[in-house]
């Protein structure tokens, strides 16, 4: 921290003061502001002391990526350009991160899939790039509508994966995300996901930190692996050196390095708990029925819980904030009294339900659904109907909806 600490109190070229991140995020005064999710991304990046952003248009992240370009024009980002495809963009981000830059990018849906080869490489190379994923459909027929299927792929890459519910989450987590992912014992990329349109294109009240405060700059020499800038010995250093050496030592190195990447994901847990006040949030965990959800499914579930409460039915709620690291112990504890665990999701396969199934005892308690996909909305009524069905209460039929 010494190098970063030495910046605190100094001003950047825009006159922002490099601030103690804990003070900036938790103690400094907040200003309520009415913004779209895309604008919130811009406001967070304005305060994030980013060296580089690489952009590419794809709905629904195009607006945020373009707004960050305005930040560059204003002088808040070191460099910014449009890449030629998501595969190239994620490689350009990697190059910048190898060279010691704090890097930011955004993508969505098919873009995430096109770039996929890069993500295990990012994690293996320990590049703390932050990538906003504004999830949308990836299946054919082509859809630009909200759908979270791509998150299930990101969860296997070795990246940190967080799933924001609201624009406020987004704002705070972008800034806190750098603090967690740049820790020397973590030093991993972060996929900060949200449900496209629902979060990016709607306006919400968001409490912003002061505009004249920003994060201290990234210090690449706190990295657990050498920065590729020829300032950092040893010079006989290839990132990664064991590629294609077919012998026992290389196999052992590959195996232990993969384990180390996942160990680093686990080590992020303590930092994440501190910054985010836990990996999950809970309500009414003593209820017989508990809804476990992430992203905007949490908001819809919260509505459903309130509607059922009016009818005298008490339901609990678990908001899963981080998918990697996976809050297994926390979910086991929060659902231990539940007779029924409801997992509503914005995708067809139900990846969250699978993760929860692999986590809790007696997983016949899990009801995977309702599922909506391909851009359908999830009215709280269908969550209510799912819960009533589980409890054996007659619910009005909701023609054409899942559940």
């Amino acid at each position, binding site marked *: 921290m010494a190098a970063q600490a030495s910046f605190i109190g100094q001003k950047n070229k825009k006159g922002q003061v490099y601030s103690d991140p804990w003070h900036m995020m938790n103690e400094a005064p907040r200003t309520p502001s009415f913004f779209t999710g895309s604008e919130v991304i811009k406001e967070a990046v304005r305060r994030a002391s980013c060296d580089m952003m690489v952009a590419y248009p794809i709905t629904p992240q195009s607006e945020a990526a373009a707004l960050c370009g305005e930040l560059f024009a204003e002088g808040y980002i070191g460099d910014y350009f449009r890449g030629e495809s998501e595969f190239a963009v994620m490689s350009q981000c990697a190059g910048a991160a190898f060279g010691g830059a704090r890097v930011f990018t955004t993508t969505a849906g098919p873009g995430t899939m096109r770039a996929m080869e890069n993500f295990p490489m990012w994690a293996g190379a320990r590049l703390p790039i932050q990538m906003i994923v504004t999830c949308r459909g990836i299946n054919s027929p082509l859809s630009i509508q909200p759908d979270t299927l791509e998150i299930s792929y990101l969860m296997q890459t070795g990246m940190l994966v967080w799933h924001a519910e609201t624009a406020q989450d987004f704002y705070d987590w972008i800034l806190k995300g750098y603090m967690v992912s740049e820790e020397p014992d973590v030093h991993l990329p972060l996929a900060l996901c949200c449900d496209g349109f629902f979060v990016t294109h709607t306006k919400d009240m968001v409490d912003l930190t002061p505009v004249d405060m920003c994060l201290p700059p990234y210090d690449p020499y706190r990295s657990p692996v050498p920065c590729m800038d020829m300032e950092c010995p040893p010079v006989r250093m290839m*990132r990664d050196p064991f590629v*294609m050496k077919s012998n026992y030592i290389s196999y052992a190195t590959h195996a232990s390095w993969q384990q180390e990447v996942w160990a680093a994901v686990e080590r992020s847990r303590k930092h994440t708990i501190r910054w985010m006040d836990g990996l999950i949030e809970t309500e009414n965990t003593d209820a017989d029925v508990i809804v476990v959800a992430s992203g905007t499914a949490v908001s819809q579930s919260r509505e459903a819980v309130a509607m059922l409460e009016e009818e005298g039915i008490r339901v609990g709620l678990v908001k899963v904030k981080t998918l990697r690291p996976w809050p297994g112990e926390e979910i086991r504890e929060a659902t231990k009294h539940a007779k029924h665990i409801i997992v509503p999701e914005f995708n067809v396969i139900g990846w969250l339900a699978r993760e929860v199934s692999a986590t809790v005892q007696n997983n016949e308690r899990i009801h995977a659904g309702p599922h909506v996909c391909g851009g359908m909305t999830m009215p709280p009524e269908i969550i209510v109907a799912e819960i009533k069905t589980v409890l054996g209460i007659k619910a009005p039929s909701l023609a054409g909806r899942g559940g």
Partner: protein
Amino acid sequence: MSKERIKIAEELFDIMPAEYQDLVKRATYGNEQRGWKDIGNAKELIEEHSLCAGCPESMAFRYILASLPNPEDTVMVGSTGCTSLVFPHVAVHNIHSLFGNQNAIASGLKRALTVRFPDRPKDVVVLAGDGATVDIGLDMTLQAWFRQEKFTTICFDNELYANTGGQESGLMQKGFVAKMAPVGKTFEKVRLPEIARESGCHYVVNCTVSKPNLIEKVIKNAVHIAREIGPTYLQLYTPCILEIGKNSMEGLQEMRDSEKPTERFAYKEYVSEPAKELLAELAAKEKERKAEAKKQLAGQTA
């Protein structure tokens, strides 16, 4: 990087590998006059290689690394292929990430180094095979040139996929029978040097690596022009002796045969107008330096 930075702490000196001790004591970092003639006199930046015996790529690597004008501030980017077997032995920082994305990596890297070190030249040099440069990575190769990214792209053209066992590549000659071209390649060798010129490269050379002094010249030109003006491209014939049925000692002759005036690797060069001006400036400075050195030498002897 200052050479001080790689000095080994005295207490730890004896436990460092001998070749690293040698690198600190006898390498040519910081020597502005470094070149191919240092080979055999100073510690080379390549220790050894795991290529086939007699592979022309190994010669190319030695000449290129001896010729980099600024190795202490140079980062190299490679790609998957035979070259990636050599890079772990190279004493400049180098990055291997994926197959074909080398010019995208280099774009991000060069820009990050420019943001972080605005007052010091940090050179970026890409070195990849023809499959990486022309086939799987062509999009990113060209787009980096369109954007005028300020780094050098070197393609080791062995006219096939060597590391995977000799499959057809875009730079293979028409008619050559290879794996995945079972009845012979049906289309012409891709004319990347011409495409490079049209795509905005300021310095393009197509040649073999048979002559170390020539390689020294084109490497220095390419790196200086990339640093000051914009993208540069070198396409160097490094035949895969294994896959074209030659013996270990026949690589050099193969290159000499292929660089005859009517052959496909006859020396070809393109220099843009701004690059010509820069090269003239550099030549004038070099002339001045030599005259000064001569004067000093005369003064000493007098």
